[in-house]
């Protein structure tokens, strides 16, 4: 009952005219920042942080949280319509969102993304409201061993259950891993793989550079080759019947939406992980649990629902360790944390006790931001569809320019733009040879989390590998991951032993 009391107090704060206006403004700004390739919630929050000192801290965090939320919705838009991930968190959305748009089902994909985001957001805020402090202690229990086990599981879902060619999937993962290890090795303090002593490799290969290269530039080249410039992107005629049919199809994915929301939320609360791995893992799990995995990657609604539900759930989840432990769960929350410090608030276990108005005002505003974001997003959908009616010859130029800007924006370094173009060409060639590229993107996201976790664990255990099996949380996860990794081998054996089984 105490929670309901706090929450209603929170709603009074969130619905003060200034705060309400800030929520609306934040959502709209976030939506567009999220939709711009390369600019995600991290950039939006970082750029607008100094502006927030004009208002009281509670209003400031409400504004930034609304922006964060809007950006999560916005990221899907360019992933679907242009095939360029709008934000790092929306990379997995391109896997199926883009093929859907090419099939002429962009409206279906956009609606699915908006509603899945709303669903994921709602579930996670409810979990947040009810269980923030106990969940924080679970996050603390996650040591390096558990983090590594979880990452292993994420890789396993991609290898063991992919309908794709397994050797090619593994090859793609390995390429991604190599790219992810470029830059400074924090364990030894030494730079690694600085090709030709080019200083730009010191900051490593930003995974957005790879993702925009593959999905923006590479995809554009592929589409030009296939269509020879004659294709019109969208044949969508919206009528009531089509909307109802779309919603019916969407309803069938509710299981995916539920599981992805939970997965996203739990991955989100783990420090260091954040929304991008959460979205990728949910995609893997959705593909694993569905009856027709071969349709994934070719335009399946579930493939849009999973990452979108997960990334919104994770973005709320990531606020939990930030507020309760003072540890950011994602890069964006790291900046929010900086903001809180400047506002004079001390994040940590005492925050829920000492600053109730702040905490519950924020939580209530998350409910409001989520609702406004879905309404605003859906009302903009006709605009995005109209954009798609342009001939591809024009759209290709727009995609190219946006990709360049997206590659440059995060680090403001031309080195990354050249690298991105290189990845675009490479991605296009690999695609011609029928290599799946999603695993490479997965590897470059998870590699920098998995590798230090593995080495820290082994350093602590003096090289004893059994630590991954003997700890209560990491043990079961590791075992499941290994079974999944070996699954293709079992399938192969079964086929050999019982030739007529299929």
């Amino acid at each position, binding site marked *: 009952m105490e929670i309901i009391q706090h929450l209603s107090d929170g709603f009074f704060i969130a619905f003060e005219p200034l705060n309400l206006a800030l929520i609306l403004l934040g959502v709209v700004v976030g939506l567009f920042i999220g939709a711009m390739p390369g600019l995600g919630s991290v950039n939006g929050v970082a750029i607008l942080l*100094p502006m927030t000192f004009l208002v009281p801290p509670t209003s400031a965090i409400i504004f930034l949280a609304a922006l964060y939320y809007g950006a999560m919705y916005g990221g899907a838009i360019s992933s679907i319509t242009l095939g360029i991930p709008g934000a790092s968190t929306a990379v997995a959305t391109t896997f199926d969102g883009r093929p859907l748009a090419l099939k002429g089902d962009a409206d279906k994909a956009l609606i699915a993304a908006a509603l899945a985001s709303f669903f994921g957001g709602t579930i996670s805020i409810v979990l947040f409201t009810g269980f923030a402090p106990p969940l924080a202690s679970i996050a603390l229990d996650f040591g390096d061993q558990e983090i590594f086990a979880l990452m292993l599981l994420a890789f396993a879902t991609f290898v063991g259950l992919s309908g794709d060619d397994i050797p090619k999937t593994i090859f793609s993962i390995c390429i991604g891993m190599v790219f992810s290890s470029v*830059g400074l090795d*924090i364990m030894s303090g030494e*730079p690694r793989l600085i090709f030709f002593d080019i*200083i730009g490799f010191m900051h*490593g290969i930003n995974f957005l550079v790879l993702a925009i290269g593959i999905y923006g530039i590479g995809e554009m080249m592929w589409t030009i080759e296939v269509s020879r410039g004659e294709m019109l992107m969208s044949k969508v005629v919206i009528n009531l019947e089509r909307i109802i049919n779309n919603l019916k199809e969407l309803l069938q994915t509710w299981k995916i939406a539920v599981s992805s929301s939970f997965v996203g939320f739990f991955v989100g609360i783990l420090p260091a992980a954040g929304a991008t791995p959460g979205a990728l893992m949910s995609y893997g799990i959705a593909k694993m649990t569905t009856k027709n995995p071969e349709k994934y990657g070719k335009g399946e609604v579930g493939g849009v629902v999973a990452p979108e539900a997960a990334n919104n759930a994770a973005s709320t989840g990531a606020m939990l360790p930030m507020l309760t432990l003072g540890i950011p769960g994602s*890069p964006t929350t790291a*900046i929010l944390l900086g903001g809180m410090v400047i506002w004079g608030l001390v994040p*940590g276990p*005492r925050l829920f006790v000492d600053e109730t108005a702040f905490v519950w005002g924020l939580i209530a505003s998350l409910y409001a931001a989520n609702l406004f974001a879905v309404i605003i997003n859906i009302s903009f959908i006709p605009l995005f569809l109209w954009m798609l009616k342009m001939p591809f010859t024009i759209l290709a130029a727009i995609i190219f320019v946006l990709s360049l800007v997206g590659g440059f924006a995060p680090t403001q370094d031309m080195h990354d733009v050249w690298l991105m173009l290189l990845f675009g060409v490479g991605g296009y060639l690999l695609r011609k040879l029928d290599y799946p590229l999603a695993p490479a993107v997965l590897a470059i996201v998870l590699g920098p989390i998995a590798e230090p976790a593995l080495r820290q664990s082994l350093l602590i255990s003096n090289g004893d590998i059994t630590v991954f099996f003997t700890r209560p949380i990491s043990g079961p996860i590791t075992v499941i991951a290994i079974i999944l990794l070996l699954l293709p081998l079992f399938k192969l054996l079964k086929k050999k032993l019982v030739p007529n089984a299929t």
Partner: protein
Amino acid sequence: MRILTTKLILTGFAIAVSFIGISIFGEAVAGWSPKKPVQFIIMAGKGGGADKMARLMQTVIEKNKWSPKPLTPINKPGGSGAEALVHLKQAKDPNHTIMVTLNSFYTTPLRQPALGVDIATFTPVARMAEDTFLLWVHKDSGIKTVDAFIKAAKAKGKNWIMAGTGSLQEDQLLTDFLNADYGLSMKYVPYKGGGKVAKQLAGKHANSTVNNPSEQEGFYKAGTTVPLAAFTPSRLEMFPNAPTFRELGQDRVYFMQRSVVGAPGMSSEAAAFYQGLFEKVYKSDDWQKYRKKKSLMGDFLSGSALKDYWKKEREIHRSMLKKMGAL
């Protein structure tokens, strides 16, 4: 003839305009001021301690409108700051390029001589603070004094885990101090940031840390972690019960500098502008409050005094890294 007249008129016009320009400028601000947005390089990643401070400085400047052109923060954490140092060294417009720096300012050029960075050529702007270090343990360990800590760490030998930020940086230097002074063999495990290190201790995945106060503040206030002693010359106001290592008979004092540095080749007028700008930031209420709250020490330093401080610190770091076998 007509061409000449036009030229004359144009020249006259140009002179008149520049005069007006000078007089307006002369009244508005004395001396040099930025003509375009200033690149404010941060030698660390987003969300870290250096980043938070840089954004606070930017905010104070923006709030008070102390600079006619904005400061644009750009994070360059690559290679323990190697990327940022090289960027500054090669800055195309040294008058509009400044950087927030920390102790990797000394250690990175020492460890990576190939970069060709000599920090003595950089333009000293301001030392804004020195961050402090303390030795922390979890409250469930029952350890309350450095003596008890030594006893427990000795018993565990190399299974005593000290978590810290990065490799061959501040935290590992301090771990080496402790190992050498007290005959311990603690195992140092590097993590990516101070926040993660603090979490390792709070989650009991590590036995001790040497965090800054700001990194442990949340857990300390909740009573989860306990500071045992400080690497400072005198006790910190915030932790009156934690003695200094000096009091305990080990002369171990170590700070993390929080300074602003300008690109090499910056004009003396531009340097004077930034020095004045950051002195105002230093004296602002916001900054003083922040210093107090985060237990920061170190007074404002600028110009040649700051350069001498850097040279002295670089030699101290050189000898420490040599002792560790890192050079």
